C-alpha cells in the first residue's frame, strides 16, 4: 500500500460547497432559492515527500478550506484526498483513520485560539501523545513532552505553565510542539505566521525549516503573504476564487510568473530593496463567490481579458514542471513579465 517513491499527498478535483441560504422558514416565506458557495472548485495538486507546497491567494479564495479538507476537518463535496496511497474518503472506521491522523498534523493561524486557555502546556502537548497511545506510562509521557518542547526551542520547565503566560511567538512554538508530539510526516500550516510580528515570523519560519530538515517533514503551507511563501516553498500554487490558476516551482514563479493574476500579486509585494519600483495595487475587488463571473473567474480584473475569457473556462495547461490555466497564455498573447527577482 505504501509507495515510498510516489507523492505523499494527491488531491483530485476537490470541490467543497457550503450552503449559505437563509434559514428555511425565511427562505420559504420570501421565496428565495437555495444558495450555495463553491469555496473550492476542482482543485488538483500533488505534494512530494519532503517538499513544501504552498497555496497563496487573497482572503476568501478557498485556500484555508483546502487545508481543512486535506487534513479531514471537513468532508469534500466531491473529489478525493489520497494520503500515501490511501483515499481518506474511503475510511469510515475510527481504527482505520487513527494511524493516518497521527501522520498528519496541523498548525493554526491564531496562536491565541489554538491553545485551550484552561489547560497547562504539558496537557496540551500530551494530548496527541495520549490520543495515539504513543507512550506507556507517565514518566515516558513527561519525557516526550519535554523533548517536544526542547525541539521547538522552549524549556521543559515551561510545561507547568498556562498558555496566557507566553507571547504569540512562544504560543505558536507550543502549537508546533503539540503537532510534533504525534511524530507526524506531514504538517498543514494554515497561515502560521500571519498573526505574528515580522521579527517573530522569521524565527518561526526558520524553526519550521529546521524541523523539516531534521524529521524529513512534508509541508502544505497556506499563506497570503508572498514574501513568506518565497522563503519556505519548493512549489507554489496560486488560488483565485476556489480554483488553482497556476502551479509552479517557487523560483520560477517569482522569476517568470505565467498567469496574469500571479503577476498582479507579485506587483503588490512591497519594494524592500528601494529600487524605485512603483507598487501597483490590485485593481478591483474579489467578485462575490456566491455568484462568480462567467468564463475565467479572473476576467473582470484581468488586463489581458478578451471575449473568450468572458465565455469559456480555461483548461489547465502543462507548462514545464507546473500548470497554468489561462487563455492568454495558451494563445501566447501575454507580454513578457518585467520585474526584478525580490530575492536578489
Amino acid at each position: 500500500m505504501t509507495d515510498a517513491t510516489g507523492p505523499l499527498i494527491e488531491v483530485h478535483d476537490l470541490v467543497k460547497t457550503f450552503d449559505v441560504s437563509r434559514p428555511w422558514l425565511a427562505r420559504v416565506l420570501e421565496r428565495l432559492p437555495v444558495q450555495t458557495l463553491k469555496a473550492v472548485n476542482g482543485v488538483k495538486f500533488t505534494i512530494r515527500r519532503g517538499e513544501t507546497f504552498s497555496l497563496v491567494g487573497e482572503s476568501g479564495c478557498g485556500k484555508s478550506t483546502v487545508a481543512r479538507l486535506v487534513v479531514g476537518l471537513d468532508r469534500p463535496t466531491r473529489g478525493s484526498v489520497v494520503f500515501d496511497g490511501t483515499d481518506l474518503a474511503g475510511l469510515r472506521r475510527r481504527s482505520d483513520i487513527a494511524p493516518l491522523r497521527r501522520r498528519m498534523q496541523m498548525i493554526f493561524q491564531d496562536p491565541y485560539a489554538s491553545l485551550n486557555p484552561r489547560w497547562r502546556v504539558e496537557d496540551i502537548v500530551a494530548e496527541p501523545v495520549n490520543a495515539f497511545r504513543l507512550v506507556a506510562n507517565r514518566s515516558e509521557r513527561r519525557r516526550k513532552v519535554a523533548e517536544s518542547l526542547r525541539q521547538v526551542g522552549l524549556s521543559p520547565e515551561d510545561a507547568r505553565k498556562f498558555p496566557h503566560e507566553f507571547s504569540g511567538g512562544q504560543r505558536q512554538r507550543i502549537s508546533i510542539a503539540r503537532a510534533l508530539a504525534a511524530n507526524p510526516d506531514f504538517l498543514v500550516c494554515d497561515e502560521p505566521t500571519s498573526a505574528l510580528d515580522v521579527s517573530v515570523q522569521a524565527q518561526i519560519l526558520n524553526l519550521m525549516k529546521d524541523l523539516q530538515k531534521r524529521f524529513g517533514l512534508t509541508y502544505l503551507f497556506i499563506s497570503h503573504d508572498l514574501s513568506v511563501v518565497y522563503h519556505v516553498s519548493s512549489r507554489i500554487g496560486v488560488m483565485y476564487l476556489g480554483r488553482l490558476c497556476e502551479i509552479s516551482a517557487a523560483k520560477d514563479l517569482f522569476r517568470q510568473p505565467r498567469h496574469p493574476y500571479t503577476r498582479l500579486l507579485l506587483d503588490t509585494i512591497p519594494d524592500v530593496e528601494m529600487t524605485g519600483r512603483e507598487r501597483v495595487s490590485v485593481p478591483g475587488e474579489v467578485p462575490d463567490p456566491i455568484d462568480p463571473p462567467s468564463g475565467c473567474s479572473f476576467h473582470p480584473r484581468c488586463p489581458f481579458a478578451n471575449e473568450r475569457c468572458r465565455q469559456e473556462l480555461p483548461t489547465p495547461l502543462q507548462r514545464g514542471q507546473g500548470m497554468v490555466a489561462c487563455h492568454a497564455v495558451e494563445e501566447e498573447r501575454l507580454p513578457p513579465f518585467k520585474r526584478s527577482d525580490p530575492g536578489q
Partner: protein
Amino acid sequence: MGGMYRRVVDSDLWFSFSRSPTVVVATAVTTIMMMAALFAPLIAPQDPFDLTSLSILDAHIPPAWMAADDHRFLLGSDDQGRDVLSAILYGARISIGVGFASIALALVLGVSLGLLAGYIGGRLDALIMRTAEIQLSFPTILIALLLNGVMRSILPAESQDQLAIPVLIVAIGISGWVQYARTVRGTTLVEKNKEYVQAARLIGIHPVMIMLRHILPNTMGPVLVIATIHLAVAIITEATLSFLGVGVPPTEPSLGTLIRIGNDFLFSGEWWITMFPGAALAILVLAVNLLGDWLRDAFNPKLR
C-alpha cells in the same frame, strides 16, 4: 498557601468585592443563614419535627420580649406549640436544601442539553432550543406547578408525603434548565470554532470528550453566575409552592409552609407566626440576589 492567598487578594474579583459594602454584607448574611440552617440541630432550642417534644399548651405564646411570663420562645410559638425560631432554622434548611438540589438538577440538565445543542447543531439544536423557547414562554412557577401536580397524580397516595421533597426538586429543577442551556449553547458555538477544538478533532478525540474536557470548562464562568441568581429563584419557587399547599407537608415545614400556617393567625393578632419566617425568607433571597447580581457584573468585563 501564601501564594494562593496573594492570588485571591490581588485578583480583580477581590478588589471589586472589598470595594462594595453591600456585597460584603450580603455575603455575610448569606453565609450566616446557610450555616445556621446547616447546623440547625445544634443551635435550635427545639426539634420542631419531634412531635413528642411539642406541647399544645405552649401554643400561641408571643415573642420573648412581649410575653408576660413565658420567655422560653424567643420568637414566639405557633398553634402546635412549636418554637418559631427553631421552625425557621429547620425550615430554612429544607428551603435551601431544595434550592441547591433543584439548581443541581437544572444545571446538569441545562448544561448537557446546551453543550449538545451547540456542538452537534442541526436538528438536535433546533429541537432543544425550540423546546426551551416554548418553556420560556410560560412563567416558571406555572411550569413547576404543572409538573408538581402531574407527578403527584401519578404517584401512589400513601407515598406522597415521603416523596413530596423529591417531587418538588424535580419540578423546580426542570422548570429552570432553559437559562443554562441557552447560555452554554452560546458559549459552545463560540468555543467549538476555536482552533484548539479543531486541533482536538484533528487527532480524533471523541466528541463527548471534546465537549467535557475542552468546551465545558470554558463555559463554567457564566453558568456559576446564573446558578447563584437561580438559587434565589429556586428558593422563592419552593416557598410559593409550599405556600399554595402543594409543596412540602406541614409536618416538615419549609419557610413557605411556615408562612402559610402563620397566615391563618395573622388576623387574630398572632403576627409572629408568619412574619418571622417571611422576614427570614425575604432577607435570605435578597442577600443571595445581591450576591448574584454582583457576580454577574464582576464577571462581565463590559460593565467594569
